Structure formats: C-alpha cells, structure tokens
C-alpha cells in the first residue's frame, strides 16, 4: 500500500508553530502529572487534597479549560514531589571554536620537526 504523509504535509504548509508547541507542552505536562499520579496510586481527588484545593478546581487545571499559571504548576510539583518544568543550569563558561589561525600549517610542521629531532638525538653528559 502506498504510504502518504497527509498530516505532516498539512502541518508543514498550514500549521501554526505556536499551536503545535502549545499542544506539545500541554501533552508533556499532563502526561507527567498523569504518570506521577499512577506511580503514587493517586486520583485527581488525592492530588486536590495534597494541594489544599477542591477536586473540581484541580480537574479544571488538568482539563485544558484552564490556562495553567506558573504558580499552579509549582503547587502540583510540590504535591507530586516532581519537576514538571526543568530549569537549565547556568553555564559558567563554554569552549568556543574560533577557527584556524592563518599559517598554522607552518607552525605545526616546525613543531613536528622539533619533536622528531629531539626524540632522535643522543646526548652525552660531561662528567
């Protein structure tokens, strides 16, 4: 059977990257909450109790009807003892390649010659 890519083609031609990213992140956060609830053997009511919220409010949070705030995500993180959003560590330094120095070939050749000559030389020590 001929394979098609009708959805991928539509998204490439017509898709809004913002919507696509919203769906991706929304799914990722809800999937993490869902997996953590399963691991803990909790339901939505247990999560609500742990956060001091009403079950209906928590259902709303997880429903997509509610635009989750950072504060509500953090409340869920603390109740579930997990990180729903990871913060990248701050980099103190980073090695950057600045390119080759012009004439480096000559330098490398001299370095190689010197290394070879010093390896081959025999020195007698004056007593």
């Amino acid at each position, binding site marked *: *059977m*001929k*394979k*098609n*890519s*009708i*959805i*991928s083609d*539509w*998204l490439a031609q*017509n*898709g*809004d990257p913002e*919507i*696509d990213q*919203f*769906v*991706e992140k*929304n*799914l990722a956060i*809800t*999937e993490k*909450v*869902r997996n953590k609830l399963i691991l803990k053997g909790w339901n*939505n009511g247990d999560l609500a109790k742990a956060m001091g919220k009403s079950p209906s409010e928590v*259902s709303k949070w*997880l*429903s*997509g*009807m*509610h*635009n989750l705030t950072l504060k509500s995500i953090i409340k869920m993180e603390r109740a579930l003892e997990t990180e729903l959003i990871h913060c990248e560590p701050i980099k103190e330094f980073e090695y950057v390649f600045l390119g080759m120095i012009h004439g480096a070939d000559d330098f490398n050749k001299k370095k190689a010659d010197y290394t070879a000559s010093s390896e081959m030389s025999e020195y007698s020590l004056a007593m």
Partner: protein
Amino acid sequence: MNNFAKIKHINSFNLVEYYSVCLEEDEDVSLFEQFVAKHTKENKEKLNHILSWIKWIGNKYTAKADYFRNEAETADTSALPPNNPNWEPNYIEWNNETQTGETNNLRLYTFRANDHVVFLFNGDVKTADTAQNCPNVKSHFKMANTLTRVLEQCFRNHDIKWNEEQTDIELEDDLELNW
C-alpha cells in the same frame, strides 16, 4: 444496497500508523482528506489543534484510549479531541470579555484499532449535546460506527492482519470493505 470502501494510508509517525477509508463514490479521496479540506477553510485553528494532537501522540506517546473520547454506538468508535477529565481538549476558545472558555467542538470520528493503528474518518462542528441530535455530525458519527463495525469484522476474518509486533496492519491493496 451494497456500499464499498477502500483503505488508504494517511500518515506514519514514530509510534502510530494512521489510515482512512475512501468510499466508492469518492474514488481516491478519503473521508479524512474531505474533513481536512473542509475545515482548513472553515475551522483552521481547531483543525490545527487536532492535527497537532494526532502528530504528537503519534510521535511520542502512542494512541492510548485516554487520548480519545468514546463515541461508540454500534461499534467501538472514538473521536478527537478527548474528553477524559484529565485530557479535555487542549484547544480553548477564550472569551476575554466573559473570561470563560469553550473546548474545541470540532469532532473527528476515529477507530482506534490498537495503540499503534488508528483509522481517521470524517467529522464536523458539534452543536448539540449528543452526536445523534446534532445535524452537523450525526451522519459522520453514524458512518464512523458503521465503518468501525466493518473494519472490526475484517480483523476477525483476517482480511486485515496485524504485523508481528502489532504495530501496523497488512492487507491486500484491492481489499474492499462491504456493508
């Protein structure tokens, strides 16, 4: 009256294969392509949410039942977006004046054969509490249930077979669905 349809491949993602069916009178244009063509014009953002949802579950999570809503009447039909309390549609039509939101009322009827194979049919904007009472989606809902029943029978008859890993289906190119 006998009706015929053929299966058409729609898209492969990392974890899910999506198919649709072409009714005899529509030749090579599948029900899903009709859905996309219509709602690209009329409901592009809502369609975008559903297609992105299909893509992301296909690429990262598999087609678990939780990601779909149950629309079974005479067969195991489902639909998108989902309605599980944890998985309400993630498309919001937010009204700034009233500060209230509506979920995505665009429906795409589907048959989730397993976590890795899904058939995508047609759908429309749902305007009533039940699909049976909605003039827009009723025919799509009925057709999806009929096609689901026919496809389930094809699996039982081994006209459609699973591959070894049960991650895709195998069938003759000229297989006709009859009802």
